């Protein structure tokens, strides 16, 4: 089936990323937007756009009826779900098929099978893929008994979840009840389904995942690993490839396991097999993400393969022409996620208007974003603003480039995690590659960039304030000119005409 027009059922940077691939391939794009996203870059980019109204996710980007309706109305013959929202929703994939629209991703059965983390582990264990000890609900024991058997610390997860939602670490029996209640609430509100599972919490695990590409004719290859050990509340923050924790022998072994996992479930399209790797080089299947990953870009940088384009080609029935032996990785790529959040206030999402944004540009610096200057960040969606991806000859080269890029990344008006990312990249443990999934809580448990204001900062502020006080322009009394203005009527640079 030839795909001629794609509805991108997403927003932000990933919608822009997908539309770019479509444009390069000569495929028309349909964009959708909720009320608060009407002026977003992805809306400007699409060939046709349709409003989704109410910004509440369930009424907009999660609203299957509206999306299918728009696809039919616009004549789109495929839907790309991006990541998040409906990307791992088997019902949506089913509804698309029923409406005669190609869902760019695996089949509903596969999404369903892997979406249920309990079933996924059972399937993988039975197929011979190593799986971590845990509780899946079928063990005929209470959560308390399961904790006793597995041994603390224990990780609670939502069986339907992903992205850290509904996850809690429990270190003692006393903490169990409250953690279970909270996890159930998060799971219920995120996924509409509050079943939980438990697993052994490994002391110093690394998160290593393998990118898979599988066509609809039975061919499966992997595009090597990504290490995503730097996480906060189980949300990835910094990702890199290759991982310095694995050598070629282990890489091949894990790659084979990833392909076995995909083969076991007749996987199609792009997907990711996630593993935990312990200090003794044992690896365990964690879960499979049946969609495009946020961090796919680092794989693209080191392999030169455009994963989104392959998703579209595979969905249109084309055979995978890439050969495993011919896929190679060169150099080192690192991505960091730029979040609108305040690292000093327990990473609370920050909202507001992005007044100034000036991005670092240079050789091998990629910036995937869906926002621009003047953009208002609302509290409705994930606070990720952009992804900064760099590529270097080796890890050291890439890290230094990343540090440079972060130091030259100007985003004013909204509190971002950029200073925190800089601190991570400069940390000796990161520099040495001595990282695990507890990196942030170990080294940045109570991180604060608290500092006194340097003279340069005060000098800059004073000059700016004096210039705009009226004195310089000769507009009269300096005090009344500045101080009678309401703080909220003069916004940012727009008060200056130049």
């Amino acid at each position, binding site marked *: 089936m030839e795909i001629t027009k794609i509805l991108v059922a997403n927003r932000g940077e990933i919608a822009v990323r997908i539309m770019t691939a479509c444009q390069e391939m000569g495929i028309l794009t349909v964009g959708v937007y909720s009320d608060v996203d009407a002026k977003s870059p992805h809306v400007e980019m699409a060939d046709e756009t349709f409003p989704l109204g109410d910004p509440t996710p369930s009424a907009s980007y999660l609203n299957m009826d509206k999306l299918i309706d728009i696809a039919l109305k616009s004549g789109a013959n495929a839907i790309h779900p991006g990541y998040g929202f409906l990307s791992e929703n088997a019902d949506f994939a089913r509804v698309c098929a029923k409406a005669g629209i190609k869902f760019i991703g695996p089949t509903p059965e596969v999404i369903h099978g892997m979406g249920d983390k309990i079933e996924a582990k059972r399937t993988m264990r039975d197929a011979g893929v190593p799986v971590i000890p845990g509780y899946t609900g079928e063990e005929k024991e209470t959560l308390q008994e399961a904790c006793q058997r597995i041994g603390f610390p224990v990780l609670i997860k939502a069986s339907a979840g992903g992205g*850290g939602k509904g996850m809690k670490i429990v270190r003692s029996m006393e903490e169990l009840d409250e953690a279970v209640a*909270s996890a159930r*609430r*998060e799971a219920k*509100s*995120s996924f509409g389904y509050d079943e939980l599972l438990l697993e052994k919490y490994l002391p110093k695990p690394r998160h290593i995942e393998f990118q898979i590409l599988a066509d609809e004719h039975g061919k499966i290859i992997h595009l090597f690993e990504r290490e995503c050990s730097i996480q906060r*509340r189980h949300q990835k923050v910094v990702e890199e490839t290759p991982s310095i924790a694995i050598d070629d022998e282990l890489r091949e072994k894990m790659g084979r396991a990833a392909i076995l996992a995909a083969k076991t479930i007749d996987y199609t399209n792009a997907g990711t097999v996630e593993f935990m790797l312990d200090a003794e080089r044992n690896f365990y299947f964690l879960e499979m993400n049946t969609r495009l990953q946020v961090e796919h870009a680092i794989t693209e940088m080191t392999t030169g393969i455009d994963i989104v384009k392959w998703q579209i080609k595979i969905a249109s029935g084309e055979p995978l022409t890439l050969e495993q032996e011919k896929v190679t990785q060169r150099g080192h790529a690192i991505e960091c996620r730029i979040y609108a959040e305040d690292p000093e*206030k*327990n990473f*609370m*999402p920050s*909202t507001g208007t992005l*007044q*100034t944004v*000036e991005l670092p540009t240079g050789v091998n610096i990629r910036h995937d974003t869906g926002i621009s200057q003047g953009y208002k960040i609302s*509290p409705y*969606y*994930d*606070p990720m603003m952009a992804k900064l991806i760099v590529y270097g000859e080796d890890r050291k080269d890439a890290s230094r480039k990343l540090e440079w890029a*972060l*130091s030259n990344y*100007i*985003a*004013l*008006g909204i*509190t971002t995690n950029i*200073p925190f990312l*800089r601190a991570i990249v400069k940390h000796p443990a990161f520099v040495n590659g001595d990282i695990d999934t507890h990196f942030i809580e170990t080294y940045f448990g109570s991180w604060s960039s*608290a*500092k*006194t*204001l*340097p*003279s*340069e*900062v*005060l*000098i*800059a*502020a*004073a*000059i*700016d*304030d*004096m*210039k*705009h*006080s009226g*004195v310089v322009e000769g507009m009269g009394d*300096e005090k009344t000119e500045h101080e009678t203005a*309401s*703080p*909220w009527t*003069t*916004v*940012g*640079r727009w*008060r*200056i005409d*130049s």
Partner: protein
Amino acid sequence: MELHYEHQGKLYPVRITRDGEAFSIGVGDKSFRVESKETKPGYFALTIDGKVTKCNIATEGNQRHIFINGDVYRFNRVEAGARPADFDKLPSSITSPISGKVTAVGAVDNDIVEAGQVLITIEAMKMEYQIKAPYAGKVEKINFKLGDQVDIGELLVQMEKTE
């Protein structure tokens, strides 16, 4: 003119006067001669005692956001005569740091609570944020109930510290 800034409870008075094409600026007991060029709105190249520093400024009411040498500083311009005590006194009122929905309430009016006890849980962007008691004390009033929508900056809890 004299300008006053506040950052994390600390006051910074700055004296600035025109000195021909340049400025003479006093910070603390130090004095600097500064030339300034606004290359485009908000972008400054400052020559401070002969050394060039580039920075970027955004203003939002009294708030100043300044990007300099890779760091972002966020602080406030304040009135002359403001006292540090006005900024860092122990808060008796807890305001919401986030907009979202109340998914759990952990105390009722007049409860005696421990420091760190979860008072209200707010869900935003599908993540839960726990609002904890900043100190041991008495909950005077909880202003929200389960299911309520809360906006950033709204008063969540009125507390009184145990002496």
